[in-house]
Structure formats: C-alpha cells, structure tokens
C-alpha cells in the first residue's frame, strides 16, 4: 500500500522556468509534510516542510502548496537553475504518533537545462 503518491517520475525544465512536483496522501493522521532533495552520491536532505495549518510556505525560490481537503501538496521551484537538478522526495508523517517515521513518495528526478 503506497501511502504517498508522487508525480511526475521525471521532469525536464529550462533554466528560469517553474518546476512543479505533486504528491497525494491517504492517511488523514499525517500532519507533517517535508520535501527532501538528493544529489547523486549523497543522502537526502530536508529542503522545506509544511504543517496542515497553513496552505502555503515559501522559502526563497521554493514553495509548498498544501490542500488539506484534497489531501495533496506540491513543491514549486521558481526560476529553476541547473544547480537544482536533483531527485526530490515528498514525505509525510504523523508527528504526534508513538513511533515517528516518514513515509516517502517514489521521487522525481528533476533536470534543469541551461
């Protein structure tokens, strides 16, 4: 059972364009939704995260949009740069649960062409 569905699997964007990655979840107990960025040969690193009490969170060129009723959230990368080329994972968890663990989407390979 895949609790977090991520799309697209891969994405190619021109420099300066907007990259959009979407995720949908099933478990209504989830209350923390982070995005991780992974470069080749490295471990994933937290990029930005949101809790469902807000509909949007922005940090620099990165924005998370959250739709609680649709159980969907998305990552927008504005003015995409070649250095943004990486694999992006969305994740979700119930932070108030007794055993804290993240459920990940399958990842999106983003390529930003110069």
């Amino acid at each position, binding site marked *: 059972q895949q609790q977090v569905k*991520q799309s697209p*699997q891969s994405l190619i964007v021109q420099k300066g364009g907007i990259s959009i990655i979407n995720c949908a979840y099933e478990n209504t107990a989830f209350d*923390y939704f*982070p995005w*991780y960025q992974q470069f080749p*040969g*490295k*471990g*994933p*690193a*937290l990029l930005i*995260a949101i809790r469902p009490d807000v509909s949007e969170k922005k940090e620099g060129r990165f924005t998370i949009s959250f739709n609680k009723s649709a159980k969907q959230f998305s990552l927008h990368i504005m003015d995409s740069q070649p250095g943004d080329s990486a694999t992006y*994972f969305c994740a979700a968890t119930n*932070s108030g649960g*007794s*055993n*804290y*663990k*993240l*459920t*990940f*989407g*399958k*990842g999106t390979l983003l390529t930003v062409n110069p």
Partner: protein
Amino acid sequence: DAGITQSPRHKVTETGTPVTLRCHQTENHRYMYWYRQDPGHGLRLIHYSYGVKDTDKGEVSDGYSVSRSKTEDFLLTLESATSSQTSVYFCAISGGWAEAFFGQGTRLTVV
C-alpha cells in the same frame, strides 16, 4: 551536518554470506532508521528503532534484522545476502518531532 556515519560506504559480497552495516550517530537522537533506495521505488523503510533495544519492522523487512544496544549505534544485518538485496542503504536519525537527517549511504552489491 548532522553527525551520522555509515560504514562501510561500499561493499561487495557473495550470495549467501551475512553482512552487517553500521550506523553511528553523535546527536543523541531517539529514533534511527534503515532505508533502502532502488530505482523506481524511492526510499523504503526496512526497520526502525525508537530507543535502545526497541525496534520494529518497516515495509521491506524480510531478510533483514537489526540491533540497537546503544543510543548511538544501529546495526542492519542481512542474514544471508541475496542479489535482490543489492541496493543503496541509508541510515537516518530523528528527534521525533520534525526533521530526519540522513547518512551518506552504503552501496551494497551482492554477486
């Protein structure tokens, strides 16, 4: 960077042999996790620990066992390695309220 060290970073082993991967943290975090990463599957949880000697299974635990005798160390053992266990293995740690920090990964090849 969070203090997480995975060892070894690379390993080639033969089918049927036991293999142990080690994760060491210096952050005193309660939670530790082992994930495997495979193309098309993303990050899948193998086992996790919520305290010393407290562990539980993840979604892909068959063929794997873990142990945590100290807060700082979490060991993953492949009891009898198979080719399907060729993967990149990541350890992660968390204080349990928000961010999880990942290690650099161990690339395991079973031949």
